[in-house]
């Protein structure tokens, strides 16, 4: 039963594809119109993985649609290749290859930049087709006489002619494309792409190779677009040059928003609306030129008000109804925790926990020194935030970094995992150089950080948050397991379960992170860093914003963690630090003021002065 429910969308799509020609015909959908809708829907499957799933808004998809179309059409019409299937395959691969090149440039930038670059490359492809390669593409004339595919050999061969046979071909291809896209969405890669959309920085910090995953989504989108482009030529036995135009890219974006991004079938539904409006409003006298205006206004209204689009709103309403009771219970629990300021963690604080992390830590050289900072410096213009700081962190210890505001603690901390690149000096993790490698490489080498301000994937459940972290350890920086389910790796699931019980969040596993109480969010923040099975765990102000009871519980928790990995901690609560840390490094104005055992530092006069600003030295006001 559970399995049947899992595949419900696939069944629904299949059924719709089967009955559509009969049911929709009276509503003004000719078979050819439906085939065209499927063509748009096919590009849309890839585009939704890029935009809906990964949050990358491309305005250049026409380039890949066009490359797929023109490569296929040219190969067939020039007689280079006789088989439509082979030509389609080559056209699709060509589009994927072009996507790899364009994506390599585009994924280096984010947000507005990404959109502008994709649009610009789309225009470049248009001009290449329309002026540079007119000998092959026919320029403004396009390529006429593209043959239809043939099934079978010799006398038994069936030509897939226009009308219903062509619809069936498109429906089969769309369905296979849909099933594959669904699997990609549910794969570890899909899970990571969703996380990238929510908080790119954190995904990198956990050890995933973010640009490579973005590039993967980009190429997948290009492949879908290329296949759709190749089919277009066969469908209308003519490859039109406007496949490359900027309007094609724009139309795809509008259809996706209207239908609902992030639903995979949204673009298909959007295309249905668009093409139906175009074909039917044109029949109404006086409306012939207005159909796109109507659509444009509807589009603006959708963006302003119903941002989820048609399918998105339906899916949202459906899941709201199904999960309403659970959601209410989750929220009630959060309120209870916040109102009474009590938490399961308080009760659990007393018992010593046996920490077992199923995922192995990365191999490191044997050595007594876990982390070594060698004359680290970071300048911002003339400002010396950190100026030549060296210290060692012993393996298995709790090491604290303290200092008054502006002492350079956060900059120093960020350099320890290469979030900020040192101006000079370097950081070694068990003798291996971290500096210059980038934050995701540092994570793979075994250094993790929990942040001062929570960086959670707020819309994902607690379990999924932890999964993103654990996947980074088990799969390495990049693996393209596009077709296996994300929750099918036993070690990863065991790791999540173990961390959940450690965090006392077992009952909250399916709760979206944004619903959690503040203290729970802080624990999840630390838990995500821990789920990467680090050798060295950096904690940036783990006690910030906590009540005294929560502080005590968190301190006990940190002591537990310290039994499985080395802990480096920045914290303002000095009482807590002196209770926790074995060694303390004190920074003052970007320089090392003191470095020693807790007792040595406590007795250090320079440290006292730095903190109290020489309270007794001041002149009377």
């Amino acid at each position, binding site marked *: 039963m559970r399995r049947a429910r899992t595949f419900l969308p696939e069944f629904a799509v299949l059924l719709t594809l089967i009955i559509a020609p009969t049911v929709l015909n009276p509503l003004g959908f000719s078979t050819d119109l439906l085939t065209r809708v499927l063509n748009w829907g096919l590009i849309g499957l890839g585009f939704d993985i890029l935009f809906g799933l990964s949050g990358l808004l491309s305005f250049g998809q026409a380039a890949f649609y066009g490359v797929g179309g023109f490569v296929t059409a040219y190969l067939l019409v020039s007689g280079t290749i006789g088989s439509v299937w082979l030509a389609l395959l080559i056209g699709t691969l060509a589009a994927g290859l072009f996507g790899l090149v364009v994506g390599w440039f585009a994924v280096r930038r984010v947000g507005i930049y990404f959109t502008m670059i994709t649009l610009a490359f789309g225009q470049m492809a248009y001009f290449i087709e329309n002026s540079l390669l007119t000998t092959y593409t026919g320029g403004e004339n396009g390529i006429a006489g593209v043959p239809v595919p043939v099934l079978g050999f010799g006398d038994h061969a069936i030509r897939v002619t226009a009308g219903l046979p062509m619809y069936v071909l498109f429906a089969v291809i769309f369905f296979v494309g849909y099933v594959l896209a669904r699997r990609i969405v549910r794969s570890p890669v899909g899970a990571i792409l969703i996380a990238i959309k929510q908080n790119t920085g954190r995904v990198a910090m956990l050890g995933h190779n973010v640009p490579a995953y973005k590039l993967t989504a980009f190429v997948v989108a290009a492949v879908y677009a290329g296949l759709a482009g190749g089919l277009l030529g066969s469908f209308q036995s003519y490859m039109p040059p406007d496949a490359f135009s900027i309007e094609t890219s724009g139309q795809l974006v509008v259809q996706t928003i209207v239908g609902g991004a992030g639903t995979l079938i949204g673009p298909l539904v959007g295309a249905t609306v668009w093409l139906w409006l175009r074909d039917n409003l044109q029949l109404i006298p006086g409306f012939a030129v207005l159909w796109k205006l109507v659509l444009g206004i509807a589009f603006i209204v959708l963006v302003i008000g119903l941002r989820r689009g048609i399918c998105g709103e339906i899916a949202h309403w459906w899941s709201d109804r199904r999960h309403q009771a659970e959601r209410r219970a989750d929220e009630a629990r959060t309120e209870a925790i916040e109102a009474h300021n009590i938490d399961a963690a308080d009760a659990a604080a007393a018992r010593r926990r046996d920490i077992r992390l199923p995922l192995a830590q990365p191999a490191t050289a044997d050595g007594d020194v876990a982390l070594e900072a060698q004359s680290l410096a970071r300048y911002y*213009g*003339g*400002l010396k935030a950190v100026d030549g700081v060296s210290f060692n962190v012993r393996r298995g210890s709790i090491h604290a970094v303290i200092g*008054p*505001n*502006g002492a350079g603690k956060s900059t120093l901390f960020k350099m320890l995992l290469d979030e900020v690149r040192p101006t000079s000096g370097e950081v070694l993790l068990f003798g291996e150089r971290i500096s210059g490698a980038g934050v995701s490489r540092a994570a793979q080498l075994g250094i993790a950080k929990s942040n001062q*301000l*929570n960086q959670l994937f707020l819309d994902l459940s607690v379990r999924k948050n932890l999964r993103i972290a654990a996947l980074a350890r088990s799969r390495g920086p990049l693996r393209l397991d596009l077709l296996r389910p994300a929750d099918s790796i036993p070690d990863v699931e065991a790791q999540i379960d173990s961390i959940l019980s450690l965090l006392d969040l077992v009952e909250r596993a399916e709760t979206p992170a944004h619903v959690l109480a*503040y203290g729970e*969010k802080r624990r999840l923040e630390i838990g995500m860093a821990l789920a990467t099975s680090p050798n060295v765990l950096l904690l940036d*102000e783990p006690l*910030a*914003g906590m009540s005294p009871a929560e502080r005590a519980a968190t301190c006990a928790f940190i002591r537990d963690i310290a039994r499985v990995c080395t802990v480096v901690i920045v914290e*303002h*609560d*000095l*009482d807590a630090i*002196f209770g926790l840390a074995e060694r303390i490094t004190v920074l003052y*104005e970007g320089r090392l003021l003191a470095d020693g055992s807790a007792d040595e530092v*406590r007795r250090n006069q320079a*440290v*006292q002065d730095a*903190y*109290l*600003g*020489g*309270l*007794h*030295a*001041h*002149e*009377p*006001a």
Partner: protein
Amino acid sequence: MSLLEVDRINTLYGDSHVLFDLSIRVEQGEVVALLGRNGAGKTTTLRSIMGVLAPASGAIRLDGKPIGGLPPSVIAGLGVQLVPEERAIFGTLTVEENLRIAALTAPKAWPLERIYQVFPRLKERRKSAGRSLSGGEQQMLAIARALIRDARIILLDEPFEGLAPLIVRDLVTVARDLAAEGRTMIVVEQNVAAALSFANRVYGLNNGHVVFEGTPADLEANPDLARDFLGVAS
């Protein structure tokens, strides 16, 4: 009636609750220091007064009139002026342009010359881009932008942070002169000695609560108390 009253405000920063029923008041002509460890809520208090962060509950009154929830531009128009911790100098604008933009909406703006009398260094550098200034010069300019507006209350957030001792000394002199002229100020500072050298009254903050209220002399008489909310345990 106090010039400024902060009445049991609660302020959240992102998803964390920073200020809990926090109340302070400032009289005309008074210099009030807010002291406390990092994360105690000092900066958040100043940002709440300026309207950069809107308190979730409670009231802020200027001359008895509520100003909580108003946008910063309106609150600035009423004579409250924040000098933020990060100084927020416009780096692509020259020193003089930074001063001119500050004076733009002030009804009784000082003439530039008067600013240059207070900070002769700024006159020397008036044609330089903001980003080319040293830390000390940037802080002078940040304070000067509040002065040129002839603000009734200046909120100084960590004015001495990251500055060399010599420059701190100069700035403290300026701050004392301003206090002596009767300019109302709230100062947040880690450098307790520097802050207390020109403050009339002190609030100690811890975890978003006021834990101490008194004069600098009270604080000095009670070093244990100061340690409680300031830092080093001994």
